[in-house]
């Protein structure tokens, strides 16, 4: 266990720890390009040079192992001079096209140059021209002129995605990043190379010229794409809607969580936000009448929903009403529905996807179960009926014992059995964010908010309940499910208080010890994607 001193602060680290890691543990940020905690060490950029006492010259902090009695200075005049020279070399062939570069604003070349750079250029030679702005895969754009050859992307493809598409070709100043012959950067995690690229060489095709990054607002969230529950940041533009043609969410970035997704997310999750601003979003309550579909005010619609449920219970008993939930609902939403169901005495509840079969799965992040909160449903005790795929409800509808169904989010007609049964259902209320075959069949449609538009938590397959925060105002009239439920419950003379967000959480943890014991991860206040800048300021 070597003990070393960095900028006057002593720290004891385990053997094999590098100086840059030890400094990070002390909260001292050392500038870097090629070093990334999730990748192997390359030592190619020379940006992290620090002064170590008794060493003949400056050493790279990312490759030097901490030794007992080591005394490190991260900011001295020599270090500043070295970093300035390193930057001068890195920028010698850089095109300086920051005005058209999507990375500007979150570019480490810009950030470090403002701090250490030589503001007057001494470069008189001609810059080497390289190939600019061409796609190297479905999501990634490469600009060889901007590249500083830190090799983070190459190491990512070799070590994390293990797909080996990228390499460095040619020698000397003609070296550049290139795809291997006949390959394409199309692995399931290709988007991560954009995040780890410290400059504007690898940029996002989907986000290209949509918005300058300093216009984006950021909110911590949880990816609803699969049972992994990767920690993400939602980047959205609401102040300048004309820029991105009405799209509010512009990109998803991973948020560091060592226990779940580390620094990465898959491409499926990265681009899985399109339903939020899609044209099939339900914006207002709708009712099916003899004259076709008519829009309804929220108050009228909720009153009708409550009246339907009340009537059905009164005339045909409590067992005539069923709730078909969804594993895409948050713990809070599920619990609110459960509260209402208990109050009304409704016991026919299921949540399983109709017509479900596991999707693509790998041994890294992507799970076959494409729902973010199946574990939450199970832990809330909704999995007690040993019947397949919620098909028992279809059976009961056919028999006529189940006369009314409140369906949340899911398209029930994906299962043939259900599709046939829905026709004989007396009344169907659909609560969901996007329209589908079931919402078109429903007598009453209540629009609900998507995960980006509400607060809540998902329980991932490991049993971590992870909270996500509201980024956007719900579109149109839509409301979070627990609010819809609370307002329906008000028609059954239930008080509002137990449906409030914090109260829901308190009750949930009191009633289900699982949620009390599971780590209810609060989203980090300091967003991971901003740490470079935040840490720099701290240093």
């Amino acid at each position, binding site marked *: 266990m070597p003990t070393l001193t960095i900028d006057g602060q002593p720290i004891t680290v385990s053997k094999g720890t590098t100086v840059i890691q030890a400094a990070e543990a002390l909260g001292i940020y050392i500038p870097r390009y090629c070093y990334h905690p999730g990748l192997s060490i390359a030592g190619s950029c020379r940006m992290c040079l620090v002064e170590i006492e008794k060493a003949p010259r400056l050493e790279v902090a990312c490759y030097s192992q901490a030794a007992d009695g080591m005394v490190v200075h991260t900011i001295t005049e020599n270090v500043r001079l070295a970093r300035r020279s390193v930057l001068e070399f890195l920028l010698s062939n850089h095109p300086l096209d*920051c*005005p058209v570069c999507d990375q500007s604003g979150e570019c480490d070349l810009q950030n470090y140059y403002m701090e250490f750079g030589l503001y007057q250029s001494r470069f008189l030679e001609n810059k080497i021209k390289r190939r600019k702005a*061409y796609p190297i895969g479905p999501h990634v754009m490469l600009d060889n002129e901007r590249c500083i050859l830190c090799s983070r992307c190459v190491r990512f493809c070799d070590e994390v995605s293990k797909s080996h598409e990228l390499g460095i070709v040619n020698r000397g100043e003609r070296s550049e990043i290139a795809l291997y012959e006949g390959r394409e950067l199309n692995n399931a995690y290709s988007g991560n190379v954009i995040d780890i690229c410290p400059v504007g060489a690898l940029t996002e095709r989907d986000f290209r*010229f949509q918005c300058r990054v*300093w216009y984006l607002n950021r909110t911590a969230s949880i990816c609803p794409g699969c049972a992994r529950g990767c920690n993400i940041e939602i980047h959205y533009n609401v102040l300048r809607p004309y820029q991105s*043609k009405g799209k509010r969410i512009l990109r998803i970035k991973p948020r560091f969580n060592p226990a779940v997704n580390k620094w990465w997310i898959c491409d499926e999750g990265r681009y899985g936000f399109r339903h939020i601003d899609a044209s099939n979003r339900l914006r207002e309550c709708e009712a099916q009448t003899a004259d076709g579909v008519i829009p309804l005010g929220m108050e009228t619609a909720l009153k009708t929903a409550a009246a339907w449920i009340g009537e059905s219970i009164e005339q045909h008993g409590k067992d005539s009403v069923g709730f078909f939930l969804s594993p895409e609902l948050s713990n809070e939403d599920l619990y609110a529905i459960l509260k209402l169901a208990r109050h009304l005495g409704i016991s026919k509840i299921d949540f399983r996807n109709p017509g479900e079969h596991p999707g693509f799965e790998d041994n890294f992040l992507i799970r076959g179960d494409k729902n973010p909160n199946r574990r939450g449903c199970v832990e809330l005790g909704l999995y007690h009926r040993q019947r397949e795929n919620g098909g028992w409800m279809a059976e009961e509808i056919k028999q006529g014992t189940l006369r009314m169904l409140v369906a949340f989010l899911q398209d029930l007609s994906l299962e043939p059995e259900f599709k046939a049964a829905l026709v004989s259902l007396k009344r169907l209320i659909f609560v969901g964010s996007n329209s589908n075959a079931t919402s078109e069949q429903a007598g009453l449609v209540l629009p609900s908010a998507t995960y980006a538009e509400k607060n809540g938590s998902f329980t991932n397959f490991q049993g971590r309940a992870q909270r996500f925060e509201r980024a956007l105002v719900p579109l149109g009239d839509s409301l979070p499910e627990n609010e819809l439920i609370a307002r329906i419950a008000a028609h059954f003379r239930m008080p509002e208080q137990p449906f409030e967000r914090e109260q829901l959480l308190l009750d949930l943890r009191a009633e289900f010890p699982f949620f009390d014991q599971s780590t209810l991860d609060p989203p980090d206040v300091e967003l991971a994607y901003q740490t470079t800048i935040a840490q720099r300021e701290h240093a």
Partner: protein
Amino acid sequence: MEEIVKVPKQAEKGSGLTFWQRTYVPEIVRGLKLTAAHFFGNLAVHIFHLLGLWTEHRGAATVQYPEEMRGYSSRLRSLHRLTKRADGSPRCVACMMCETICPASCIYIVAAEHPDPNIEKYPESFDIDLGKCVFCGFCVEVCPEDAIRMDTHILDFAAYSREEMIWDIHRLLNNEPRRAEGIGQIRKMK
């Protein structure tokens, strides 16, 4: 409970007119005297100018605006224009610097992909809401491409509606500078 103190609201009136002021006539005479002094004074100055005398003394002049206009200082910040490349396309690369710096938030740019990879980015639309603009000139200062200038010397761009005050990229690109020879010079408009 806090006690609310009532402050009597009474506007203070002027101290009133003196007797002579109230008689009206002396004040009228005083005013006419001032006007007449300026009139005859300037008349004399302009007659001397015609005779080539006393030219270092400036007489009051009337500019027949809008038929005549005075030249403005070359530093004056006037209506914006977007400069063009040699081929007539806008120099602007839609970097959004002006939109970001604008303290009045009156610039609205939408970027798009340019077919030429050496240009990459160009403004699909570039609107300036002149009803909001405060003419600070920050957009000109910040522009890395010299794509926006405020040197047209056009100041008469009033409109009848707020919508007409929003200038789009076509109007901004075709704003020809209307520059006069020197400061204070009067020139006739065609």
